[in-house]
């Protein structure tokens, strides 16, 4: 199972390398004053990506170290990951303070806190961020569209 996963990961990197090479093909080539040009480095990297990914896949097939010790992606990790992505997506819409308070509240609840401590923690941290970043460091935090 681990070898299959490693092979899939390697294939993913091969795909990434091919897509990168395809995009690099649209870059201008070398000029007299710049013998390598903007495209050479991406081409070299694309090829390196594909060669290394194939090596990784081959190592997985041969049962080498390339496939050893893959840690399964757990469902609760994915929940936290989606929560973070939703939080970041909410920042330009709801503003930093509101989305942060909501995220902290949800995060604390998910982590096992009760409603009241989680709520106090969320509000307290949102105020602290406002004091430190907006008032002390003069960072204009996103206010959102709402």
């Amino acid at each position, binding site marked *: 199972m681990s070898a299959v996963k490693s092979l899939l990961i390697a294939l993913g*990197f091969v795909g990434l390398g091919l897509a*990168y090479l395809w995009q*690099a093909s649209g*870059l*201008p080539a070398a*000029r007299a*004053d*710049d*013998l*390598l*040009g*903007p495209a050479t*480095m*991406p081409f070299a*990297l*694309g090829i*390196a*990506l594909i060669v*290394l*990914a194939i090596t*990784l896949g081959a*190592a997985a097939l*041969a049962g*080498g*170290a*390339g496939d*050893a*010790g*893959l*840690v399964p*992606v757990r469902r*609760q*990790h994915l929940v*936290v*990951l989606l929560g*973070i*992505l939703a*939080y*970041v997506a909410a*920042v330009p819409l709801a503003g*930093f303070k509101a989305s*942060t308070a909501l*995220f*902290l509240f949800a*995060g*604390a609840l*998910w*982590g*096992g*806190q009760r409603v009241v401590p989680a709520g106090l*923690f969320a509000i307290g*941290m949102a105020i602290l*961020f406002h004091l430190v*970043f907006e008032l002390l*460091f*003069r*960072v*204009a*935090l*996103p206010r959102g569209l709402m």
Partner: protein
Amino acid sequence: MGDVVQGILSALQWQTVVASALGCALGIVAGALPGITISMGLVLLLPVTFGLDPATAMSLLIGVYTGGMTGGSISAILLNIPGTPSAVMTGIDGHEMARRGQAGKAIGIAIWSSFIGGWVGWAALVLLAPLLARVALSFGAPELFALMLLGMTVICSFSEGSIVKGLLAGVVGLVIMTVGMDPVVGVERFTFGQVELQAGISFLAAMIGLFAIPQVILGLRSEGPRPPSRPPEVPFSEMLPSLGDLRRILKPSLWAGAIGTAVGIVPGTGGAIAAVLAYDQARRMSKAPQEFGKGSPEGIAAPEAANDGVTGGALIPTLTLGIPGDPPTAVLLGALVIQGLYAGPLLFERNAAVVYGILTTFAIAKFWTVILTLLGIKAFVQVLRVPASMLFPAVAALTVVGSYAIRNSVFDCFIMAGLGVLGYFLTQWRFPLMPIVLALVLGPPLEEHLRTSLVISGGDVTTFIRRPVSAALLALAVLMVAAQLPWRRWARALAPITVGSSPGGRP
């Protein structure tokens, strides 16, 4: 001489000294809290340094680096939960001693041996860095290209996991680096028409995402050991070692400091390796090796001194060559860039005062770490009780505000989150993240030196092998990769195929 005095004076200004103390305190907290690494503590503080002058900013961050190394031992000794990977070895004898009711003595040994080891690293830094910088000043573009390639190769080779994964991670970092304006002729690459991508991927946002987000995801619902509701008492008087104890730990601490310094100089190694090597050496040298693992003072002193020796060692290639020795120094390299300073031999020539300021503040941080740990141990122990359910969401919020504050851009938050997700999956798939971070830092100058070399040589690729220094560095890079490849395993894997496919092959 004027630069030396100016550097020392800048490090002795009150705001710089206060920043150093604050950094040490935050570093001890970051090091002590399981799941919060020193690198994470540093990246979360980076946005705070935007408005600070170079001396104050570097004091703050070097304080975190130095304090973090000692902080890691607090949770390792008291709770047997190492705050940092390099504190794992400290926990073996430290926790045994704490279980016998000598927690204060164990922490005291850790503090003082860290102090001794740290000075060994500092002395090496002060003596070797200017010499190495002077040698590196004679390097041209081909040598600098070869040097950066070697640095990247070393880190990819020595990273945890297979070398193929290390190299792949390095290439992924370089791929990310190519997004934005081309560094030589200013052509847009891989921007997909996005104005925000023209300036490239902010490596600070990338660092925040790669270092912090995977830890948040893994830490929020961690099933690891939980701190007890009442951590053990650590009396102040116990932390002051007797003359006999000091005499017993002095020699192993000096040795371990030297081992840590040597390990730190090699890019990509770090405190965990140094701690293991120093522990082993201390056991060999000890008059009571049977006590190791059962609460031996030398067993605590050696890994702790090695950890702190690493800090000085790792700063040598970082400051002189621009190649970070470990993940925290990669962040320090980024902090210098924020200040408009580029680590490397030219830093010693053009900004010598800043360099000597850093060396001085590094020494000050060692005093602060001892003073703060001794006086604030009760507070630091209380910090260990902060529940993960509050700590990690707060860290996630800090990553968002930190990445936003770099350029006041929400786009950087998306970049940070995207790379954080990538970092999480790569962590689970056992890919090292350090090569990606290093590629982001070294990628642009690497490409620039490569292209400049070819322009100067009129397109002659042999320029890299005709110049002895660059040829030697490139040969070393190739050897480094070749030495790490699993030749024997490949030969074993291929053997049945070769035998089977050969008609006359013998079994």
